[in-house]
């Protein structure tokens, strides 16, 4: 009996000692794993290349999605694409951002260019420093940029023309003629806008036999120079021309589209003013679903991002690349908007 107790006792002692040692071990293990997780957060992936992306409205969902797709594409090539204005506490102009990017010694610049001389000069500076520049969405043709990635304005114009035609044939318009207003950037001496406009005209004229009513086309200059000018310009158009509102408004960028949509809703001009939009932001898709926006042109942002990276990598690797990369466009209207959304959701889910 006593012997059994003795054994039991020593078993208990060993057990307790074991537990204590285990506890110490556990503590050490905790600590090690804890410091490991800390180190893990400190661990970072290094990239070979560093590209800067510059855009005036980097916050817009169009540019955000462009950035996202470019970033994804760059990651595959082990290049980091940075929207450099994102992390800065101060607002800089595009040319200033270009200067910063050049001074920072980036490996490539993707810029939403314009036809201004400053931009040309900035691109030239980059060229001098051996930094390739890709213009995205809008071009600066006189510069030494290596490529332009965007959509064909001609194609875009004819798409809009087709949309106007389809509206003219399907919708009743009260006036004798159908007034079409195309919103263009006032500051951009952009040939692209002209090409677009003429492509639209061409498309409409080619179908003049089919149209019941004559279509009057005009341009409305939107001041896009400063931060909030777009919205003001659009609003002015609606206030100043209350008696002579356009039947169809064609918007050539996301902000225009959203502004026009908002104004039409606010002034209760839904049904009177038809909108042809640009890009497929959430707000615009909603507009289509509510039948405020007749249709919008969606650009394959993923394709554009891929093109940018392709152009830069090719240039850096082989010394040249193709001058133009044209992305596909597609039309979204009330008939295919839900399908488009589903597709997009699936795509978002997929990765």
């Amino acid at each position: 009996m006593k012997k059994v107790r003795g054994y039991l006792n020593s078993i208990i002692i060993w057990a307790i000692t074991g537990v204590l040692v285990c506890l110490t071990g556990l503590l050490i293990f905790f600590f090690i794993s804890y410091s490991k997780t800390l180190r893990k957060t400190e661990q970072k992936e290094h990239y070979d290349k560093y590209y800067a992306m510059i855009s005036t409205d980097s916050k817009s969902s169009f540019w955000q999605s462009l950035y996202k797709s470019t970033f994804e594409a760059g990651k595959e090539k082990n290049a980091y694409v940075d929207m450099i204005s994102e992390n800065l506490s101060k607002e800089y102009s595009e040319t200033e951002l270009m200067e910063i990017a050049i001074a920072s010694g980036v490996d490539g610049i993707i810029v939403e260019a314009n036809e201004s001389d400053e931009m040309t000069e900035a691109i030239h500076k980059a060229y001098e420093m051996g930094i390739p520049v890709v213009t995205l969405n809008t071009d600066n043709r006189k510069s030494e940029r290596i490529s332009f990635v965007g959509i064909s304005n001609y194609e875009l114009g004819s798409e809009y023309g087709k949309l106007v035609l389809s509206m003219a044939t399907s919708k009743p318009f009260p006036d004798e003629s159908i007034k079409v207003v195309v919103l263009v950037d006032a500051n951009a001496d952009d040939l692209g806008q002209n090409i677009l406009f003429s492509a639209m005209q061409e498309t409409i004229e080619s179908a003049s036999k089919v149209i019941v009513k004559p279509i009057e086309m005009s341009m409305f200059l939107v001041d896009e120079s400063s931060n909030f000018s777009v919205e003001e310009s659009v609003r002015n158009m609606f206030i100043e021309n209350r008696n002579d509102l356009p039947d169809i408004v064609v918007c050539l960028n996301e902000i225009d589209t959203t502004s026009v949509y908002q104004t039409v809703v606010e002034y209760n001009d839904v049904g009177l003013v038809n909108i042809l939009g640009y890009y497929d932001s959430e707000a615009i898709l909603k507009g289509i679903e509510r039948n405020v926006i007749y249709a919008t042109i969606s650009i394959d942002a993923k394709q554009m991002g891929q093109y940018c990276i392709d152009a830069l990598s090719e240039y850096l690797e082989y010394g040249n690349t193709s001058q133009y990369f044209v992305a596909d466009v597609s039309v979204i209207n009330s008939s295919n908007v839900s399908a488009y959304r589903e597709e997009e959701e699936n795509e978002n889910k997929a990765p």
Partner: protein
Amino acid sequence: MKTKLRNLPLQVKMMGITLSVNLLVFMINIVLLFSINSMADKIDTVYRANLELNELSASIKAVQDNMTEFLNTKTSDALEDYYKSAQEYEEMVEDLDSGVSEKALDRMQRSIKNMSYIYLNEVEQTIEAKRGRNVEKYRERYDDATKLYGYINTYIYSLNNEQFKENSENYRGLVTSFRRFETAGNLIMIVVIFANALLILKLTEQLIRPLRNLKGMADEVAKGNFEIASLPVEAEDEIGVVTKAFNKMVVSIQDYIEKMRKSAETERELKEKELKMEAHLKDAQLKYLQAQINPHFLFNTLNAGAQLAMMEGADRTYEYVQVMAEFFRYNVKKGEKTVTIGEELELVDNYIYILNVRFSGEIHYEKEIDSSLLNVPMPAMILQPIIENCVNHGIRDMMGEGKIKMSVYRLDDVACICIEDNGIGMDQETIEHLMNGTPISSSKKSSNGIGMDNVMARLKLFVGSEDVMSVESEGENKGSKFKIYLDIKETDDV
């Protein structure tokens, strides 16, 4: 190894236990402290980066200021200051990260680094142009440098902001994990303390278990149980020594007891032998005495004597011998039996006759008998010894005529036998002696060996009560009176 450990002295063992337990606590403490320290270090580094950035900012400001100062004044002091600050700034920029990673902080550092080199180059060229008095060039360079200075400052500022933002997040994470770790540490410490207490309890129990066993054994021994197995000696420590001594003690006590027992036995045997010898002696004496006073022989011889006297015509002799024979026969026959009052009275008559013949009629014997009580039973040989006592102690030594009066009468349910004499009487002490049945020193000489104490004892046994006889004496020469009370009820049954 294990036995070696076991054989350590108690003190060392206790010290070992406390030492190991404390060591454990100490170890855990060390681990805890180390972890907490390294965490605190991490928290520290979080803010060090911000400090460094501020220094960087101050340094580039110094470069810019010194350059401006030099451009303004062109003093060699300003130039010297510029070189110093530029050197300092360059060194600081050297330390900046130049890799491209997912972290905006790193990328911004890289940008700052690259821009700083260009800036320093630009400043250098500005200074050169100024010294070369190339006014247009140095102005242009100065503008460029200032622009870059602005960019860099913005970057540093933004980086500082970003870093602070990230650091705050890190700090929060660190603090939460720190707290969690602290709680876990405290919990573990508590568990360890309890476990340690338990460990000490168990270890000391292990240590003092032999002591407890020893105590139990000692209790057993104290109860008188020496038949115990010797305690096992578990270790060669102090307890082991005590256990050994205890075992030795138990064995020697056992031995001692055994010796005592043996000597007691021999003594007892000796005594027994002695007693047996004595008994044999007594037996022999008794046999001898019995042979001497064989009553059959006696009264047969007396009978023969009586017949002889009758044949010779000596009537009185015949009667005397006859009575004597009767007297002895009674003694032989009824010695131990229950008789009646009548039979006892007959014996008394015989005795008186014998005495009167012997002492030629000195004793006057009177009888006053209630004859209805003659059949009351009583033990044999009661009245004769009393009469003998009266004669021997009362009448013999007195002057004049001795008288004895025997009366038997009824007293309610009790038959009373009263024997009176007119002898010298008794003092109170003698009476008490008689009553208590303690033999008087001189009473050994009663004729047929039956003393008053014997009479008294037998009467008491027969009746079953203490007051069966009373002795009275009114004083010296006033005689004495014996009274015997016997239950009559039993006569009816007889």
